[in-house]
């Protein structure tokens, strides 16, 4: 079943189209990556889905409803959002910030303090930051802060999870761990849509890759079908080769620009 549906959506500022005529469907158990060069409109697309922006044309629907028709409270029970490095100046402890992910449930009679605590503990454990629980967020590194935000988003426990560059600030270990976590989050019956810069991470862990360029969707489908030399080289304006991963059953994307030394040799 489709949970997130974007149809013919455009977003224009002045005369410039940031997102133009985009279609995107994501199912109830699906991990979708949005990739593309800087300025391709990925973040704007995510903000349209999140309900931060209203499309200038076309429609966005989350579980059958337009985000603009929902009250902020109802929307917060439907989708959680991670923005890139939010939280540099936050004075709270890690545990407090993750617990704020439970804010949308504060008037829910079915919710309880015990349930909140349980979800917070689970989110801290899943993102491997339990040992940081009592640290003040503003004293953490960018990568640690990102994991705190991932934990907050998990604690919000929504059917739709939207993430803008959740792995960009992370080292390779935490990047893999986060991708594997998001994969399992999707498998638990959630729709996960992430803007990613690392095409290899997208290829390894996501069900579908949406390639954007200049506001439009250039290709959409399973990684093995979508990723090819010609498309990626054109979109990134850079020679790129796609080869089979030596031991994972996934495509692997390699930069193919001749190195400066090669010229001299």
């Amino acid at each position: 079943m489709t949970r997130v549906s974007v149809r013919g959506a455009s977003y224009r500022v002045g005369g410039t189209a940031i997102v133009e005529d985009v279609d995107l469907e994501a199912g109830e158990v699906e991990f979708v990556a949005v990739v593309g060069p800087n300025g391709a409109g990925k973040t704007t697309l995510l903000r349209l889905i999140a309900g931060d922006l209203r499309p200038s044309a076309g429609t966005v629907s989350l579980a059958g409803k337009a985000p603009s028709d929902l009250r902020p409270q109802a929307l917060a029970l439907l989708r959680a959002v991670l923005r890139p490095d939010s939280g540099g100046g936050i004075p709270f402890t890690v545990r407090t910030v993750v617990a704020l992910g439970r804010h949308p449930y504060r008037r829910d009679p079915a919710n309880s303090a015990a349930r909140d605590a349980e979800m917070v503990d689970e989110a801290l454990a899943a993102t491997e930051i339990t040992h940081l629980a009592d640290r003040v967020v503003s004293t953490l590194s960018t990568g640690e802060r990102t994991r705190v935000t991932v934990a907050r988003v998990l604690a919000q426990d929504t059917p739709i999870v939207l993430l803008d560059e959740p792995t960009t600030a992370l080292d390779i270990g935490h990047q893999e761990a986060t991708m594997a976590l998001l994969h399992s989050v999707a498998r638990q019956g959630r729709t996960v849509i992430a803007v990613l810069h690392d095409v290899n991470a997208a290829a390894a862990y996501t069900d579908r890759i949406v390639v954007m360029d200049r506001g439009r969707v250039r290709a959409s489908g399973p990684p093995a079908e979508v990723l090819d030399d010609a498309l990626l080289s054109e979109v990134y304006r850079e020679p790129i080769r796609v080869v089979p991963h030596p031991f994972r059953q996934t495509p692997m994307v390699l930069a193919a620009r001749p190195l400066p030394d090669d010229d001299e040799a």
Partner: protein
Amino acid sequence: MKRAGVLTRRRAAVVLIGALVVLLVTIAASLYLGAVRLSAGEVVGVLARKVGLSVGPEPSIRAEAVVWQIRAPRITMGIITGLALAFSGTALQGLFRNPMADPHLLGVGPGAAVGGALGTLLGGGAGAIVGAVVAGLLTAVVLRLLVETRATERARFILMGVALGLALSAWVGFAVFAGDRTKVPPVEFWLLGGFSTSTWTMVGRSIVFVAAGAAVIVGGRRNLDVLALGEAEARHLGVDVGVFTSVLMLAVGVAVGAVVGAAGVIVFVGLLVPHVVRKLLGPRHGLVLAGCAVIGPLFVVGADLAARTLFSPVEIPVGLVTAAIAGPFFLWLARRDAGVVT
């Protein structure tokens, strides 16, 4: 983790109880000290009879008048003022994630003072409070519209608020000088504050509005926590940021108006007290407000005690005392810990 939580709670309780004890001592000193010398027994005698106990010597009419008709209402008005200003400062600093946000600095206080002066001309003491509340609300609405249009940038927003405040301070002067100067309190009362005219009637009128405004701010404590994550994050967590901002600013307008109408503009309380409390109790708004409810009144009642005893029998405006104490203290706080003010 659980242990740290318990420790935090224990520490908060100790700080709050400690501050409460200091507040009670300050209140006792304020009842005892003043231009008219009374014995401790006389003070106790007056207060005991108010609660139906015959303790201490039978008080003289003079002691009764000084303690119960002069000192007690001005202390009570000081408590209300400290709470209202500290709550308002907390609300504005939280809403705009700006450590310089303060009801007086942003013009709500001066705006309320214009209304207070005009209200006095039209309707005496009751008019002062009502006029100040209405004008405080109007100033809050103007400020809200400024934020909505183009002043969300932190620095510019504060600058616009300061300009608004200075312009409104001038209007306080116009309102006073244009009116009947035998009826309206002088400009220095409105802009520097004072409790020498406080009465129980005034306390009764003011407290209703302050209670309403304070209740709204307390109700918003969780949303203020969420807002600390950022405006976009608050929206993603279900806070209707626009509506919440409007509601809280109106609450600030009402609470600040009600105390300015009674005691004029007392600077630095709304700015400094929330910073001191956050330093002691951490950044969660529930605890910050609890601390403000004790330390706000402590600061104002203490400053008023100093204002009327330092140069006794001459009484100086309480705003001079708050500024003289809080200014350097704020500078020290800002220099010592950049985190407090950035």
